């Protein structure tokens, strides 16, 4: 089959499938075209149209559109068409576009999908633009290398995040605990959970399996994936049993909610931290502000658990902006990314919502403008910089399927349908099955 013909067929297959599921996959998706600023010729440059896509919440959509408007006022010849959606729908929309070679010029890429898109040649290497269109003078090598894969950097790191426990001290007090010890350990955590349970309060809503299992493995000097990305990075299944066994015990004892309780939560208004029946949530630092605003009481950060927190913690790129390999206006796209990362005005709109900015200058510029909870996030990430270890290489191809398997197995574990030992074995076989394709 000739390549062109194949593309057409694929596009049709994809569109037929998407048509069949159109309602499903486009729920919550919006498409808008900005006003064509190219008509009022400002610089006399020829008009350029870029497509840009991202996922996120309503807040993110709003300020991102404002940033784009700001860019347009400064570059009247550029029109940016935007496509945004929530996380799940975003990836379902992007995949067929990739198959049809129709990816947007600028697209937001998640670390989990990064290897899939970058490794399969869908994204442009950004290194030629560093120092030219994209100013990297104030960005550390480390931050840039968050998007390194092989010899290239296929995504611009938009900000950094760090893991932690975000909790409501008032609920903690209701649980009969004064404070969380400074370098708290698993024992502290479990005893706080037990006290909370006695007082009818949940400790947390569980730890996202793939993120925190990865963290736990790092604390004992192992990794979730091996160097080559074609197998798991730990040999002893007892590590799985130790980690998930403890978490499942919390669910079993009633210190953490069961999966069917969690399934009832439809939105932030049902969130148990918001309602004050749960002490806190384990999550990435950029999610703190939204939670704090929903809770609307002072909240605090606690670091991840000891022993080994320093080895376990790492600064993770929150997400990337990548340029599609097929983009016809790569330089223009790079210019916009530069604007997004380095422009003070733009960052006054972004305010670190995509993670703490990678530019040291921007970080300083923003400080006086931040709300108290945003300051907490910046401070925690600054603390993490001192108390963490370098990040693992980006997740290998197939990571999403491995996550899905891990998620489903921990769900079975929390329903009490499988023992931790069996889950550990099953996870190994399922994960190896997926990852062996990378050999």
């Amino acid at each position, binding site marked *: *089959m000739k390549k062109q013909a*194949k593309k057409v*067929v*694929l596009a*049709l*297959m994809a569109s*037929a*499938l998407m048509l*069949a*599921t159109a*309602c*499903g996959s486009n*729920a919550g998706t919006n498409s808008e075209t900005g006003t064509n600023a190219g008509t009022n010729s400002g610089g006399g440059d020829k008009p350029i149209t870029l497509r840009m896509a991202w996922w996120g919440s309503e807040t993110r959509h709003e300020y991102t559109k404002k940033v784009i408007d700001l860019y347009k006022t400064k570059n009247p010849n550029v029109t940016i068409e935007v496509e945004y959606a929530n996380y*799940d729908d975003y*990836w*379902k929309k992007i*995949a*067929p576009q*990739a*198959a049809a070679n129709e990816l947007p010029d600028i697209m937001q890429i998640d670390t989990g999908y990064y290897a*899939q*898109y970058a490794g*399969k*040649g*869908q994204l442009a290497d950004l290194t030629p633009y560093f120092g030219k269109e994209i100013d990297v003078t104030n960005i550390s090598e480390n931050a840039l290398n968050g998007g390194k894969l092989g010899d290239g950097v296929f995504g611009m790191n938009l900000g950094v995040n760090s893991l932690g426990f975000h909790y409501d001290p008032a609920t903690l007090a209701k649980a009969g605990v004064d404070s969380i010890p400074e370098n708290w350990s698993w024992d502290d955590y479990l005893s706080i959970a037990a006290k909370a349970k006695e007082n009818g309060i949940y400790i947390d809503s569980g730890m996202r399996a793939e993120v925190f299992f990865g963290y736990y493995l790092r604390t004992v000097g192992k990794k979730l994936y091996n160097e080559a990305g074609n197998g798991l990075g730990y040999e002893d299944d007892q590590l799985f049993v130790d980690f998930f066994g403890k978490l499942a015990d919390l669910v079993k004892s009633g210190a953490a909610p*069961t*999966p*069917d*309780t*969690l*399934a*009832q939560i*439809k939105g932030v208004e049902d969130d148990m931290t918001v309602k004050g029946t749960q002490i806190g949530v384990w999550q990435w630092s950029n999610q703190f502000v939204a939670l704090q605003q929903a809770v609307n009481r002072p909240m605090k950060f606690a670091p991840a658990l000891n022993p080994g927190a320093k080895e376990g913690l790492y600064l993770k790129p929150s997400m990337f902006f990548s340029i599609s390999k097929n983009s016809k206006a790569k330089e223009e796209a790079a210019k916009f990314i530069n604007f997004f990362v380095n422009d003070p005005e733009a960052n006054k709109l972004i305010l670190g919502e995509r993670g703490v900015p990678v530019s040291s200058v921007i970080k300083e510029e923003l400080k006086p403008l931040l709300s108290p909870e945003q300051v907490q996030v910046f401070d925690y990430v600054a603390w993490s910089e001192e108390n963490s270890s370098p990040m693992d290489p980006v997740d290998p*191809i*197939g990571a*999403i*399927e491995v996550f*899905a398997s891990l998620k*489903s197995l921990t*769900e*079975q574990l929390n*329903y009490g*349908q499988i023992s931790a030992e069996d889950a550990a074995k099953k996870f190994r076989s399922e994960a190896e*099955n997926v990852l062996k*394709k990378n050999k």
Partner: protein
Amino acid sequence: MKSLAFRNNLVGYTFISPFVIGFLIFTLIPAAASLYFSFTDYDLLSSPSWIGLENYTSMFTSDDRYLQSLKVTMLYVFLGVPLRLIFALFVAMILNTTSKAVGLYRTVYYLPSIIGGSVAVSIMWRNLFGDQGIINVMLNSIGVDSVRWFGDPNAALFMLVTLSVWQFGSSMLIFLAGLKNIPNELYEASGVDGAGFFTKFFRITLPMLTPIILFNLIMQLISAFMTFVPAYIISKGEGGPLDGTLLYSLYLFRQAFVFFDMGYASAMAWVMLIIVGILTAVVFATSKLWVHYESEGGR
């Protein structure tokens, strides 16, 4: 002469061309391509590589989740389709009565089917069956404990089945047409002979309707196998809890567009085609035993 014949035919070809072109572009070529992809390892982003039957064999030997999706789908079809047909027939019989407002009733009862497959209804269903949803409130009022519809894997599938039963409209309309076709004399005659409601129903209505039942059965069977949207919406795209609502097409979709395993997804699609084909053939084969055609001397 030849040109005249050609010109005559040309009109015909022109008229059928929209269908033929559409069929080629949107059905035949993609189907052939998917057959080819089903023998390859293909991740959408790089070119496919031939792996022979591996997709088909690993489906049945090393993929528990696939077998689970097959099981869930079978349950969904074999619970949902009969219930849906019974309910459709029931409503059709009610609407076959002579009432002044019957037009209004028919419209009202058909409405769910028009909006039935849509996202909005699935979301509404999610709310109905929520923790404080009306279903649980009703259960509580008769002294039954709330059911965690989204948390309990079996209950979640049951919820999908009820949603499918509720979308009975199209089969109901066809039943209604069938009911109208049963000659009233048959009922009158049997009434004279002293037949009651149940005798009339089982001796006249059902036998006379069997061709319609066959048609509805096959159509519903096929569409039930392809159900996607409600499971997608209600389980937030994941088929949970515990893969309890992982319908076949949902798993296929996940393989294709979440895990980027287009080859595997294509193979799944072909297996589904074979399964549906076999089931349809079985229904046709058994239909000789129970479908009653008046025009052929009862057979």
